[in-house]
């Protein structure tokens, strides 16, 4: 198991009417083959932008990779041509989204849509592609796959649609599967089914998974490593167990404590939830040489307002960008 993806000092800029904002600001991380890595943070923190950057799907003319590199198997895909990028998207990196309905074409049956992907990327014949589409639907546990293959997206439930999306993503046997909040629109029992499916597929095919989510519970449940993002910057990364049990960044701690989690045993006692006051700063404030979390942080002092925190290592695997990390 080697390093599959290595992102170094990545900066992604987005031009808005008010100027250019670094929506991803100096991000570095590695993804090993077969690993599950999770990005966490509130909306507007750059989680999805990272995924789009890796996929080469940044909004045209608005977003661009300003500096840094994304090494996939040693190849820098920030310098790849459009054709090469398309090849990588088809064969090596796939993505599934939050709302499967809008990602599926309503006028083709789901079998046809999966077969189309197979014909394009694996150059299969029509009949062979259809047969394999049914196999894939079966693999993602769509009941009665043979008959279901001729269904149209609107005839499926939300959970089934997401399974179809996963089947399409797997059609290219990708090395990396990026899942952007894949279960946010689904019920918890269906979410559990999808996670179970992803976990099995990962074990069987060795596909690495990048899971983008806002739910710490989801991270705890399925990821090995996690990266907490805030206002376009990595604030903490490390092994999930380490980070969840000893968060070093006040934002990470806040994200964990602000949600009323189900605990092993419930008691009469209900402590007030920890609030993270305020909201994520607007794009205009991104990129300043301060700690961007300072305005919401109860530990913030003069230093936090004067310089961007440097990244510090804690017990080998945990990396934190906070001036006061020792005190959390």
């Amino acid at each position, binding site marked *: 198991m080697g390093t599959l993806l290595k992102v170094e000092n990545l900066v992604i800029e987005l031009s808005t009417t008010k100027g250019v904002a670094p929506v991803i600001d100096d991000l570095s991380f590695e993804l090993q083959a077969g690993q599950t890595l999770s990005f966490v943070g*509130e909306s507007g923190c750059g989680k999805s932008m990272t995924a789009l950057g890796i996929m080469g799907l940044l909004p045209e003319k608005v977003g661009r990779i300003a500096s840094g590199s994304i090494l996939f198997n040693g190849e820098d895909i920030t310098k790849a041509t459009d054709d090469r990028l398309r090849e990588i998207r088809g064969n090596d990196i796939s993505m599934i989204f939050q709302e499967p309905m809008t990602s599926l074409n309503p006028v083709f049956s789901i079998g046809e849509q999966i077969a189309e992907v197979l014909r394009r990327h694996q150059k299969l014949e029509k009949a062979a592609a259809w047969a394999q589409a049914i196999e894939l639907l079966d693999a993602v546990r769509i009941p009665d796959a043979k008959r279901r293959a001729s269904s149209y997206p609107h005839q499926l439930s939300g959970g089934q649609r997401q399974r179809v999306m996963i089947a399409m993503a797997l059609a290219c046997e990708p090395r990396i599967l990026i899942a952007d909040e894949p279960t946010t629109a689904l019920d918890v029992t269906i979410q559990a089914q999808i996670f179970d499916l992803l976990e099995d597929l990962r074990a069987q095919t060795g596909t690495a998974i990048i899971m983008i989510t806002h739910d710490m519970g989801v991270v705890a449940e399925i990821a090995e490593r996690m990266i907490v993002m805030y206002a376009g910057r990595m604030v903490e990364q490390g092994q999930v167990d380490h980070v969840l049990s000893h968060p070093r960044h006040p934002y990470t701690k806040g994200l964990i404590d602000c949600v009323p*989690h*189900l605990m092993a045993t419930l008691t009469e006692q209900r402590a007030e939830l920890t609030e993270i006051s305020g909201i994520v700063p607007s794009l205009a404030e991104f990129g300043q040489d301060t700690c961007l979390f300072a305005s919401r942080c109860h530990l913030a002092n003069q230093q936090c307002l004067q310089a961007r925190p440097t990244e510090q290592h804690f017990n080998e695997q945990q990396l934190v960008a906070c001036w006061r990390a020792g005190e959390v």
Partner: protein
Amino acid sequence: MDKSKASDTLLKVENLTVQFPIKRGSIIGKKKWLRAVDDISFTIKRGETLALVGESGSGKTTAALAAARLVKAHSGSVELNGEDFLALDDETLRTARAKLQFIFQDPYSSLNPRLKAESIVREPLANLNTGSQTNDKKAEHNRIVDELFEAVGLRPEQKKLFPHQFSGGQRQRIGIARALATQPELIICDEPVSALDVAVQAQILNLLRKIQHERNLTYLFISHDLGVVQYMCDSIAVMYLGKIVEYADRLSLFNNPQHPYTAALLSAVPSVDRQRRSKYKRILIPGDTPDALNPPIGCRFSSRCPAAQPICSESEPPLISRTDGHQVACHLVSDTGESPISALI
């Protein structure tokens, strides 16, 4: 207000049923009815919070809308303070609405984009005419609006802004202020935080708890998020396909879920607590919620239940209490209140 009984139970819903006509196929074809809410009963004590929990399609929101007469109930009764809410004529209902208010899920569609924040909060006051003298009414309404803005944590200068100028959390605060304007006794909170960012959810949940204590409010809390429910509620009714399948107080339900569906639901919630993850094995229930037009015969959960027995698809289990006040609708729960699921894990 008579003190003895009425002051204890605030809302009493009995045998509430809501159905919608479904047009399918030809125009002349027989009308089919979809039973979104099927014969449910619950009560809420003054100052307490009851949660209606369930997944999409369980009928929890419809039940609440019907209780507030925002959706027409087919049968059943809703007593608020001992008065039958469903029997009120239109004009009495209009004024009676002051006692029962709503907080909505979507902070973006729940505020009229053409009104200023203060007008949104003032609307119920103007409609229900809660002011005393006509002369000072306007001044009094203004004073109440000011106080409400302060109570929900909004700054006075924000009164003049339009909804699109607020963040999601702030919009939800406006929604809460609007619900408080008429000094209601019962507030129905329909997924009040599920559309908000996690960090903002805590702000709103804390605010809801705070105003509940300050004003002795009673909540009917609708949610799919069991973590939030656990934090907010005193008792919980779990709904599946329009029926209540389990109804118990907070500790009893979370520590000893008896219905297989409740157990599966609880086990499916991802948790950061390692202890909980090792203690509860995830119970996977297959498939999706069945079509509400053709619910399974017998127990509605039987088609997905990992513990189902032949009897489950023959007769519908009644909602009964085996152990102290913990009601469950399942044939297979033992007399000591042990879930059939526990044998499977």
